[in-house]
């Protein structure tokens, strides 16, 4: 294992210290990243978090127009209840706090415990479960939360900045999640510092279909194919689950180790696919946003937009990971 770290145990803390040093707009306390400005009275607070290793998610999305706090667990390990409780209490501006939780057993259990234990703060939660690679059935823990988390955090964040009440913000967040679908493909595994080697081995000529964002192996393994075909596999899975129509918000997301140029190649194919189905890419995002350490690969996330969601997506945002309009 070759990594730019000091020790495997200190990597999360060291990275957060670096973030704090790089972004005066952020404060870091006990592995929770806050807006330096603190809570705004009357604004619903947005708290998210989960295991680390998905950067810029979540910490990179703390700031105006998105999150108020991000609770950062160890690599791929959801945070424990205490910091979630602390974050929830700290960001409450009197209008309550929304927990944005990716649907993984660990995240769900720890956020639930925190929500139960927190005192004097009205808490609502939204579960993100957009990954169509997993069937939502009695035979699984339900769909994973992946790329749509960014959409939920951005759009709910914009709604919160407008001063909307907690139930509104929660409803918008749930709506975005309900509309969103994702599918991911890996060219390589990733190496958690504490594990010291790749989570799985992928032969030089194979790719892993239907991967999540924790280096878990996917559903199946197939020979590597041209970007056009791989984009087709991802889009077929999404289109099969939710036929593409109308104006779409489309993200081609890198898993962390894939260069931007390759993501643009994939996006070109995704855009052609969307056009071919008579739908339209109204808004797009291409880059490494919801990652899995140094994994090479991509995921596509699609969310049909209406005028209101488009307006909220376009609203100003100022975070280390996503910024426009100010």
């Amino acid at each position: 294992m070759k990594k730019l770290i000091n020790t495997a145990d200190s990597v999360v803390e060291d990275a957060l210290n670096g973030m704090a040093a790089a972004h005066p707009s952020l404060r870091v306390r006990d592995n929770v990243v806050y807006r330096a400005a603190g809570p705004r009275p009357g604004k619903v607070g947005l708290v998210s978090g989960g295991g680390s290793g998905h950067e810029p998610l979540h910490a990179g999305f703390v700031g105006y127009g998105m999150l108020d706090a991000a609770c950062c667990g160890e690599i791929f390990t959801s945070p424990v209840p205490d910091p979630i409780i602390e974050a929830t209490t700290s960001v409450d501006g009197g209008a309550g706090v929304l927990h944005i939780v990716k649907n993984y057993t660990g995240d769900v259990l720890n956020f639930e415990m925190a929500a139960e234990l927190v005192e004097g703060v009205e808490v609502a939660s939204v579960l993100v479960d957009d990954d169509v690679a997993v069937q939502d059935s009695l035979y699984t823990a339900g769909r994973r939360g992946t790329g749509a988390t960014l959409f939920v955090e951005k759009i709910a964040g914009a709604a919160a900045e407008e001063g909307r009440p907690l139930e509104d913000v929660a409803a918008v967040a749930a709506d975005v999640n309900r509309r969103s679908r994702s599918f991911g493909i890996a060219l390589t595994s990733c190496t958690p510092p504490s594990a010291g080697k790749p989570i799985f081995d992928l032969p030089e000529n194979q790719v892993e279909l239907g991967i999540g964002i924790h280096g878990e192996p996917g559903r199946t393994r197939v020979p590597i194919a041209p970007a056009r075909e791989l984009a087709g596999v991802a889009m077929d899975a999404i289109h099969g689950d939710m036929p593409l129509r109308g104006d779409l918000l489309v993200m081609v997301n890198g898993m962390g180790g894939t260069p931007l140029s390759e993501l643009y190649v994939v996006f070109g194919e995704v855009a052609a696919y969307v056009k071919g189905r008579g739908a339209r890419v109204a808004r797009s995002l291409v880059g490494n946003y919801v990652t899995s350490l140094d994994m090479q690969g991509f995921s596509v996330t699609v969310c049909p937009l209406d005028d209101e969601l488009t307006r909220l997506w376009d609203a100003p945002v100022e975070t280390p990971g996503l910024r426009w309009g100010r």
Partner: protein
Amino acid sequence: MMDTDLFVAWFEESSRLIRRERDRLTRLDAAIGDADHGTNLDRGFSEVCKALADDPPGSASEVLTTAGTILIRRVGGAAGPLYGSLFRQMGRALRESPVTLAGFAAAFEDGVVAIERLGKATPGDKTMVDALTPASRALALAVRDGVGVHEALVKAADAALEGAKATIPMQAKKGRASYLGQRSIGHEDPGAASAALLLEALASVAG
């Protein structure tokens, strides 16, 4: 009878075994999960031992409650809240000190039920539950048959180990492994493996 020191020793031995088996647990988690189970438990159980050393608890109940609370506070992931609830529930259930085998068996059953309730897992889902429920059953039988504490705990440990191995052919229906569908078959569940270690630890310190 099981006294307070025995419960303290249980967590010390558990921490030792988990440290020893950490990489195996992480490898098992790498195969069908995200390769952090060993590291997470190692971190959590050593914190438990520190806490128990820092201020020695006065009763078995206190030992278990402290341990459960620290696991919830330090481990994270799925296993943290689940194991934490197991021990906190046992602490709540155990009012006597020293503890009789019958009392322990009942409390352990309560703890396992707490895990099942929290995780909504049932036997056969390929989780820690598949190691814990056989252990609980073995304890109940031992109480019925009136066998001694050590023998009972050895039976429980054997049952847990068997239960863990029995997860190998299962397809996971809960936790990360369930995302793999059929591909989860053929691998031992890391949480079941760690649960078996905990019962092995208890048997050996009661020896």
